[in-house]
């Protein structure tokens, strides 16, 4: 998985750095699609609908097998094939091959942006991207449903144990659960959100970052006047005509929302396994490409965890870690995601025996735990000075050694069960064991936001995120 990331970064670097103009000739200004013969029915329907909607002419050429398509990749703007994960044997001086999009369970597409220099895409490249996202999005899914290639309803069991039946495709998502919002971005469906809460994006820095990640952020965030775990303005919500509601398993107002007759998925992702389950669930109901991205995410999560583990499992003794919350003496219980993160990163969470949510403790108890490292979260006004400038905390070894660290965030805090938390684990491992852990945080951050938020993160942003 790391290799995949590096390839992507190299491609982006090529794209950004190259200056040579287009390498292959344009035909008539229309899009050229190379597609698998076996998929002729959906491809014809997709391209016809796209041409009609966008006014871009599309020529489709069919080939009997994926190998032939890959070999002729240089001639095409869009490839539709079954072996969509294979990298085409082509390298642009000034362009890139897009990531793979899944259109049907066994069919995928890539576009080839051959005229994209220094980060800006040529008009034909943009059209090629539009065609692929059209096919992979709800419109394409609807066409596939009409052809009988995809189910019209998806049945799942959510994390509250309720069976939910979700009519397909889902075009408009309302996510009062401010953690689930990031699941939606993680599977590439952020543009389908019509109303959402955003964890960690109410402070100016978080909001600014979220605006860069999604230009529609302010509209979506303010679409409904009241929308959170405790309450929602149901009528304003209904007026937005969402197809799907994403809620916390602990949300209170669902009975009223249930009267709208909307499918509601309830999440509870407070552990690595449950986070991955949540991603699988959201992928399952948002179409084949979202399901594919959820698979990619889970594989990325497992892969990165395994790499961290490979470097930390032999480290002895383990660093004793206290994960503090919005107040210095509020600490994360053993059931919380923060504790699981510390364990995954090779630390020894001193509060592992506590149960429930955040626990209030006293400093004597902290002295017994004797932590060598203290982490605090990027919200709630938690800050380093609360520890380092307190004469009471000066008796704690972590404070004496200056090993008090705040977890970073871009928009979503890295210590909460959002997709970004895998970077949080990596960050904790690097912070705990700077000499032993040699993973490249910078590269992973670039790769992660590209893969799961379709966002090219800037150097300035990375500066603030890596140790």
């Amino acid at each position, binding site marked *: 998985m790391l290799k995949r990331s590096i390839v992507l970064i190299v491609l982006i670097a090529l794209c950004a750095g190259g200056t040579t103009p287009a390498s292959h000739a344009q035909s008539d200004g229309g899009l050229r699609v190379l597609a698998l013969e076996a998929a002729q029915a959906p491809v014809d329907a997709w391209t016809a609908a796209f041409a009609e909607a966008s006014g871009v002419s599309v020529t489709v050429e069919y080939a009997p097998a994926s190998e032939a398509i890959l070999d002729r990749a240089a001639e095409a703007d869009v490839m539709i094939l079954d072996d969509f994960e294979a990298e085409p044997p082509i390298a642009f001086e000034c362009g890139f091959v897009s990531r793979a999009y899944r259109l049907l369970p066994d069919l995928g597409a890539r576009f080839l942006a051959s005229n994209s220099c220094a980060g800006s895409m040529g008009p034909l490249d943009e059209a090629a991207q539009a065609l692929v996202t059209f096919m992979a999005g709800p419109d394409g899914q609807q066409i596939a449903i009409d052809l009988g290639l995809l189910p019209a309803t998806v049945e799942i069991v959510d994390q509250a144990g309720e069976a939910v039946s979700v009519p397909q495709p889902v075009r408009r998502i309302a996510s009062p659960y401010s953690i689930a919002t990031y699941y939606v971005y993680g599977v590439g469906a952020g543009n389908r959100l019509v109303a959402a809460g955003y964890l960690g994006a109410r402070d100016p820095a978080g909001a600014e970052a979220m605006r860069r990640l999604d230009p529609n952020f302010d509209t979506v965030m303010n679409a409904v006047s009241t929308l959170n775990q405790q309450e929602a303005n149901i009528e304003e919500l209904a007026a937005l005509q969402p197809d799907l509601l994403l809620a916390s398993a602990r949300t209170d107002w669902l009975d009223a929302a249930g009267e709208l007759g909307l499918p509601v998925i309830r999440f509870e992702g407070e552990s690595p396994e449950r986070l991955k389950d949540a991603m699988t669930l959201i992928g399952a109901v948002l179409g084949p490409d979202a399901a594919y991205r959820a698979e990619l995410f889970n594989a990325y999560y497992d892969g990165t965890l395994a790499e961290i583990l490979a470097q930390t499992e032999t480290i002895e003794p383990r660093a004793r870690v206290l994960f503090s919350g919005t107040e210095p003496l509020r600490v994360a219980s053993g059931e919380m995601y923060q504790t699981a993160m510390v364990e995954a990163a090779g630390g020894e969470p001193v509060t592992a025996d*506590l149960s429930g949510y955040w626990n209030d*403790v*006293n400093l004597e108890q902290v002295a017994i735990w004797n932590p060598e490292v203290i982490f605090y979260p990027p919200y709630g006004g938690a800050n380093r000075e609360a520890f380092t400038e307190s004469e*009471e905390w000066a008796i704690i070894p972590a404070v004496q050694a200056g090993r008090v660290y705040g977890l970073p965030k871009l928009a979503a805090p890295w210590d909460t069960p959002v997709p970004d938390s895998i970077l949080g684990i990596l960050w904790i491992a690097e912070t705990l064991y700077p000499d032993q852990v040699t993973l490249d945080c910078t590269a992973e951050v670039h790769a992660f936001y590209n893969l799961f938020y379709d966002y090219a993160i800037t150097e300035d942003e990375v500066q603030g995120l890596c140790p």
Partner: protein
Amino acid sequence: MIRTLNRRLPGVWATAERRQSALYWLIMLLPLPLAIYTIGLGRYAIPTEDVVRALVDYVTAGENTSTQPDLAYNIVTRIRLPRIAAALVIGANLAVTGTAFQGIFRNPLVDSNILGVTSGAGFGAALALLLLRSSFEVQLFAFVFGLVAVMLSYFTSRLYHTAPLLVLTLVGILVGSFFSSLTSLLKYVADPLDTLPAITYWLMGGLTDVTRGDIPALAIISLGGMAFLWGVRWRLNVLSMGDNEALALGLNPTRLKLMIIVCSTLMTAMAVSVGGVIGWVGLVIPHAARTLVGPDHQRLIPSTMALGAVFLLLIDTMSRTLLPAEVPLGVFTGVVGVPLLLVILRVNKTGWR
């Protein structure tokens, strides 16, 4: 006055008087040894001789002079001592203001929160947490808004010219509810991830965050207020008989009540600004003391201070020692205080009837 009456009465009254007198001195002697004992208790096990050495060092040299680890010295002097001092002072403070209020309102159901001081302080703290976040400003806002709420209650009630005590009680409840609603409004607009937990945490009350720096202001205002209430203890007896008796005995009940209200409010606001909302002490302790030593404020005022100090000290000691995670103080005072009050009301032979 009641004591003089009692002295002249033979038999049952004299026996009760002797019993109450003995209990009174027992209660007054309780806080100090208990406080010294609880210094030795805590999650972090420190041998008794080290505790003693730390205390001796603290008193004589002001720093750690022995060979024992600094950690034990710091825990005893920087964590346990301030917290125990705060528990004693706040407990005494809340209990004695409760007694004073019950006396002047002639109502066994009130405590010093009746004029909205706690709700006002809660609102002030929430406002500061929402806007400013520094712990000094949170305390300052809590203190100031506690006073503001009481002033609002007092001056609003002056607008009505009937049954002043009843109106004052009613307006106090209304002002308290008003500030509670404002606090709810602040909680509603607060970021559920950032500010809301901080506000909830503050409102639950607790002495976890008490440090040495909190003690001087708390001690000065509380001890000053206690001295004043002790000074007016016999006048409280007169006030609790009603305004007409007070006038007949040459007191100005309105002015005296105002002074007691101002003093008690300053004290309660100070206690709340340090320890958050700690309920029940001001209601349960006066009743307990009245059962034990009788309704005469000569004894009632000192013994409620001592009992309040002991009660909060015991509760806070449980809260900080029982479990790794602290049980919120407000929860404990309710869980212990309510059954206690029910028992007291059952056995109560003196005082309110």
